[in-house]
């Protein structure tokens, strides 16, 4: 109970102080609207925000799937030989450390003006790629060495070793990688939406930009709130999925 009460009490206290300070000092609402105004904006724009949140979520989810497929295949290739690993890994790391904002304009050009969603998905996938790739690659190399020896002893073929030892051994690493990547995919999608800068994709980032341009600060806060709630929900969902998957994997 205290787990929920403690953060709720803190949030309540912050909101109360915020409301009181804003009212006493009469800060203009376009600089800092009071929480009650934000709540009103949230309620008034709820249908629009939900549609936009769903749009962002959809793109982040597609990006996560694309990243998982690409990262998984690449990790498998890397696990085949140390030479391939040495060849591919620097490229993967370079892709990882390049800020997504920097490659966004290029992606927007490639995707074409009519398809900003493709640019957003591609950029979010780039951000989500690395944790799945490195997790899978590490997992595939982390099988118990004695089990590897037993597979030698039993004369296992390479495909048997992959399917019956290395992939199952990697499962917890892959799951963990996907969990981390799910949060990054949302961040990536939002950043990409900002940079793509087009109103064609009515995601949450666009709502924030739009409200900002019109100095509707309360609506801006409402969109940020919607984004935070969505990201938190995805985090909780993936944490739960990870726990369930690990229970299934190890039987307890």
């Amino acid at each position: 109970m205290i787990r929920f009460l403690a953060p709720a009490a803190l949030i309540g206290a912050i909101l109360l102080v915020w409301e009181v300070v804003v009212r006493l000092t009469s800060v203009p609402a376009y600089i800092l609207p009071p929480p009650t105004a934000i709540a009103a904006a949230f309620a008034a724009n709820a249908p629009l925000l939900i549609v936009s949140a769903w749009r962002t979520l959809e793109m982040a989810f597609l990006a996560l799937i694309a990243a998982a497929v690409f990262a998984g295949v690449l990790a498998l290739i890397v696990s085949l030989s140390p030479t391939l690993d040495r060849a591919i890994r620097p490229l993967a790391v370079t892709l990882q450390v390049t800020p997504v904002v920097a490659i966004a304009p290029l992606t927007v050009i490639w995707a074409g003006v009519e398809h900003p969603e493709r640019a957003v998905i591609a950029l979010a996938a780039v951000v989500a790629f690395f944790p799945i790739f490195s997790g899978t690659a590490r997992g595939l190399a982390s099988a118990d060495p004695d089990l590897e020896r037993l597979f030698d002893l039993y004369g296992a073929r390479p495909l048997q070793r992959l399917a019956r030892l290395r992939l199952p051994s990697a499962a917890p690493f892959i799951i963990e990688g996907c969990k981390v990547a799910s949060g990054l995919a949302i961040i990536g999608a939002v950043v990409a939406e900002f940079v793509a800068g087009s109103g064609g994709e009515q995601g949450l980032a666009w709502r924030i930009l739009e409200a900002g341009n019109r100095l509707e600060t309360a609506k801006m806060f409402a969109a940020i709130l919607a984004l935070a709630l969505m990201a938190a929900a995805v985090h909780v969902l993936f944490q739960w999925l990870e726990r369930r998957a690990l229970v299934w994997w190890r039987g307890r």
Partner: protein
Amino acid sequence: MTVAQLDAVEVTYPGRGPALGPFNLAVEAGEIVALVGPSGCGKSTALRLLAGLEAPTRGAVTRAAERGQTSVVFQAPTLAPWLSAEANVALPLELAGVARPAARGRARQALARVGLGDAVAARPVQLSGGMAMRASLARALVTGPRLLLLDEPFAALDEITRRRLADDLLSIWAEARPAIVFVTHNVEEAAYMAGRVVVMTGGPGRFAGETTIEGPAPRPAGFRLTPAFRTAAEAISEQLAQAMAA
């Protein structure tokens, strides 16, 4: 008949210097040999040579047992956590191409043989240390090996469990009589289980002495109190003390 033989084998690991040898060992069909020696004397290396998991730097390894006729049990149970006990035990058969239902059936028999008939569906995490070791033993036995290699199989278990497992292993051995080579730190365990105990010097491990233990196998109750057992254990301890002093 000799099941496996090491002739003047030497093993040197790059960057770590010599680990074993020169060392000779001939394992006869149906006998139980214990390898005893100080830590790091290359006992486990000798075992891996016998298993064909490693090649010697110098010397020759002769193995009469073919692939699939040699089984290894490590110090840790080394079970796959994502598989049930039954699936773990069936693994060597399935990898060798035995059809799944047949493999699972033989796995259940092997588990029943080691006293885990009720735990076929359990995952390794649900098994106690002793039970997991029994499952590991069942996996080694399921292929009907001619040569069974055990690398400190009971080292992580408590005294009661290890004695019980030793007796169970001996009665299982009495049925099919595979040749067994096992590595141990424990002189009493060596003298109790083995017909022949080979003592090795500190690394690189060389032959330091050999003791034959007379007496019936499997061991009758109270064997640890007999003069034959006490004499053998004394002799092994003496050889081990000299090997460690050298």
